[in-house]
């Protein structure tokens, strides 16, 4: 571990360039913002997009770096780069689908885009964390920005409720996380993730302080990934927030939360996985079941997608319960790519169909869509099929991979529960398709946002991602596997050998 001795002054700049770029962009928007009228806020959005693209290019260049910076506080490895890339793509898609929404709602563009970028910065920081404090700082940076974003429709009581609920429960969960961090520090004497892993031996596994800390952190992350029973805030927060923010919460926040969760638990608390995988087994089963059954009765698409996001967190946790199987991490990373594209696409369609002040689109708004907007209906069909897990789309291959990882860890019953849950989910996803194709158009006011360039582009990118990632999964699988391997401090070839 020679790079642990690197001092803060002579580290390579490249690995933190993506982070720096996003932070710089956010500050630039804040500086320019006051001089820009709200009607022209799209320009600021374009600036945010450019920032994100630049950061994306930097992040791609950092692939293969695998070093620690700032005395081990930042782990700029492939795992971080992988998440940075996915988070940046997700953020860029969010910004693209916000362009018209923000202008139309008369929202303050400068603050909006700056907050989105700050949140993205926090997310990326979580992915690149080398110690628990950075995890916490990243989480807070992201969360504070997203709390504000959730309440961005100031005159809409639902939006206020969303922000408040999210904030109070979020703050509560952060308390758990912080307490857990403190206890782990007490048990191991360090906050660095790699030193913690090194300190975990059989005796440590029986240390009550460590176990309590583990439990506290599990609760903290459970809130952020919206696992049952810590999911209560999700439906209301998702429904009330402006729809692009909902998309951002469902995808970006979830990506970051899983980045932190996996980095801490799977990669670095793996040696004591016997202590927490059983709990995760139960949480995964509960999360899938509650998410899917609650989604069955939803009429509002935003709410349905919120519960569907809970269900998908459950499928991901199935993979997590398979720790320390090497395959599990790669499987989850792959799953997250498909999840990001598919959900962002679905939310973009909801934005197109949403009517002003309606708080999202209901099933009725989708009636007869195959006649009025066949392309959009086809795209939505693909997203629903991918979420359902129909081959050869991304959602299917992800499920396939996660389930095989869980089976390789002999979690047969958990996988059966997951399969039964997927069968349940077919009902509510398929209902959207039926409504679009088999029912006549309802006589309602036309949606206010006719497909505009930003939205169309995000739908097209999401469709392309959903199909490509599923149909040709090998390169994505390779990337996911080598990313996870780097978080374990191993080379990808060794992972392959383990498998």
């Amino acid at each position, binding site marked *: 571990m020679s790079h642990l001795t690197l001092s803060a002054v002579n580290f390579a700049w490249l690995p933190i360039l993506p982070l720096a770029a996003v932070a710089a962009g956010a500050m630039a928007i804040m500086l320019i913002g006051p001089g820009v009228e709200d009607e022209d806020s799209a320009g600021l959005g374009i600036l945010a997009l450019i920032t994100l693209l630049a950061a994306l290019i930097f992040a791609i260049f950092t692939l293969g770096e695998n070093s620690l910076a700032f005395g081990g506080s930042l782990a700029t490895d492939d795992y971080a780069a992988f998440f940075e890339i996915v988070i940046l793509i997700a953020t860029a898609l969010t910004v693209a689908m916000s362009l018209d929404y923000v202008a139309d709602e008369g929202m303050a563009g400068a603050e909006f885009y700056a907050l989105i970028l700050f949140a993205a910065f926090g997310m990326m920081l979580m992915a690149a964390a080398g110690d628990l404090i950075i995890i916490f700082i990243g989480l807070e940076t992201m969360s504070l920005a997203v709390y504000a974003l959730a309440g961005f429709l100031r005159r809409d009581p639902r939006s206020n409720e969303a922000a408040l609920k999210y904030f109070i429960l979020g703050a509560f969960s952060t308390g758990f996380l912080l307490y857990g961090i403190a206890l782990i520090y007490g048990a191991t004497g360090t906050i660095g993730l790699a030193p913690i892993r090194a300190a975990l031996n059989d005796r440590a596994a029986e240390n009550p302080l460590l176990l309590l800390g583990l439990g506290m952190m599990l609760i903290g992350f459970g809130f952020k990934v919206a696992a049952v029973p810590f999911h209560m805030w999700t439906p209301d927060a998702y429904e009330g927030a402006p729809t692009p923010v909902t998309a951002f919460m469902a995808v970006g926040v979830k990506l970051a939360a899983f980045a932190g969760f996996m980095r801490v638990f799977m990669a670095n608390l793996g040696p004591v996985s016997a202590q927490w995988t059983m709990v995760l087994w139960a949480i995964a089963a509960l999360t899938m079941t509650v998410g899917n059954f609650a989604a069955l009765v939803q009429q509002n698409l935003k709410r349905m997608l919120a519960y569907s996001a809970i269900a998908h967190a459950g499928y991901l946790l199935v993979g997590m319960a398979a720790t320390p199987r090497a395959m599990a991490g790669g499987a989850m990373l792959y799953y997250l790519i498909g999840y990001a594209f598919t959900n962002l696409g679905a939310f973009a369609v909801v934005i197109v169909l949403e009517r002003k002040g309606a708080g999202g689109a209901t099933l009725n708004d989708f009636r007869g869509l*195959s006649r009025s907007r066949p392309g959009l209906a086809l795209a939505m069909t693909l997203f629903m*099929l991918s979420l*359902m*897990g*129909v*081959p*050869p789309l991304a959602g*299917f*291959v992800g499920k*396939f*991979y996660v*389930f*095989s990882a869980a*089976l*390789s860890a002999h979690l*047969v019953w958990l*996988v*059966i529960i997951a*399969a*039964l849950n*997927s*069968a349940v989910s*077919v*009902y509510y996803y*398929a*209902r959207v*398709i*039926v409504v679009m*194709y*088999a029912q006549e158009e309802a006589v309602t006011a036309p949606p206010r946002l006719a497909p505009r360039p930003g939205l169309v582009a995000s739908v097209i990118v999401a469709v392309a991602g959903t199909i490509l990632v599923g149909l040709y*999964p*090998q390169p994505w*699988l*390779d990337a996911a*596997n080598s990313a996870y391997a780097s978080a374990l401090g191993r080379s990808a070839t060794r992972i392959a050998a383990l*498998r």
Partner: protein
Amino acid sequence: MGGFWLTALIFVPTLGALGVLLQGDDDSVWLPAFIYSLIPLAISLYLFAIFDPSQAGYQFVERYAWIPEFGISYHLGMDGISLFLVILTALLISLSILYSGGGDIEMRPREFCFMMLTLETGLLGALLAVDLFLFYVFWEVMLVPMYLLIGIWGHGRKIYATFKFVLFTMLGSLLMLVAILYLAGAARAQLGHLTFDLPDLYRVSFSPAESRWLFAGFALAFAIKVPMWPVHTWLPDAHTEAPTGGSVILAGIMLKMGTYGFVRFAIPLFPTVAIEAAPLFLALAVIGIVYGALVAMAQPNLKRLVAYSSVSHLGFVMLGIFALDSQGMQGAIYQMLNHGVSTGALFLLVGMIYVRRHTFDISEFGGLWKSIPIYAAVFMIVMLSSIGLPGLNGFVGEFLILLGAFLHSERAAWIAATGVVLGALYMMWAYERVMWGPITKSINATLKDMTAREIAVIAPLVALMLFMGLYPRPLLDRMEPSVNLLLNRVAAAQVRLDRPQYRTVAALDLQARSGRTQ
């Protein structure tokens, strides 16, 4: 390995579907769609011509790596079992498109053709896949267009029927997915690498408990699709509410995916469980035969009657399969084809009368013989084929199945034989009420007889009924080697089990043969 015929077969319809999308959404779409559907039919007939009947294994094999990480390959092959089902699929799709273009489907014809052609890709792919992952992909792909076919162009309670259909099939297929994954995981433990390739998976062995659970995972998915009693309840709704073209494909081919799955996957992968479970499946099959026939008899709705007759006929197929001997299995495959031809034709005929009268109620008809004699005559032939009159196709299949079943379980064969009688009864009774007697409703007196297009749709099926009934040799010759190859696995398992109460004819054969060589 080279070859491109099977890929062409599977993906020409996809290209056709995309081509159709470029057309206008009006009646001009039918002709190109029909032509696109003729290409796979021509390819399948060409493959029939060059198919080597002496070879038992896969022919025209294609194999490329697809997701090497998981040992998943794009592996296609055709043997004597899939050959005829492929031809049947291509034929019925063409006929359905030809028929539906004649006025049956007036709403959104372009999307209809798109769905039909995509469906064909899924069906052909599932029949030709040798890799389990690939099979699962196509298995699911065919679900989506069928689901939309019922949902968009169906009648009456179409949404309800759609959901019932989708939920039943998805439940089965997801559990099958778990079984497939477990299978591949076991392959990695034993063979050292992940694989979904069927021949590779044959080499994996399981503990008795494992193989029972895995067999159950596959069997449930396939039994729902067949459908076997008691998981058949989605079928009457789906068949009745589907548009005619959809019903033809659903009954003609999609149900065979279930029986095909048993033959191709469930039985050869877990032959010992298949032998142990045979009594159970024979019992379910027999119940299905009698139950389907009795319920069909009680139907006031002509289409529902045909739908329930499918439950009965597919019971015969299952009976033949789980007789686990060469006659029964060949009879079962032959009966799959028969059912596709006869029931496909029946659904078409029922659809034709619906277009004229917009009702399926048997009580609305009567005396049609007088007003539309050609229709009545064709209906007669089709009905006779369906009830297994000697000289027509149904007889050959039922005879072989009963022969095979008789050697295995006399009791099952006896009860099944009563199903034949019941089948004759409900069909002829329905025929009597619809065709004979006086014309009770004046509207029935002025009906138009079959159009040239309708005759063109039915004629190939009637010709097949006669051909398959009089001269089954060319079909059975090509099936037999593949069936025997498959049964060798069962027989080998039989010898391993060596439990006399499960002794099948195939095992006796094998023992006799090995006795001779020693």
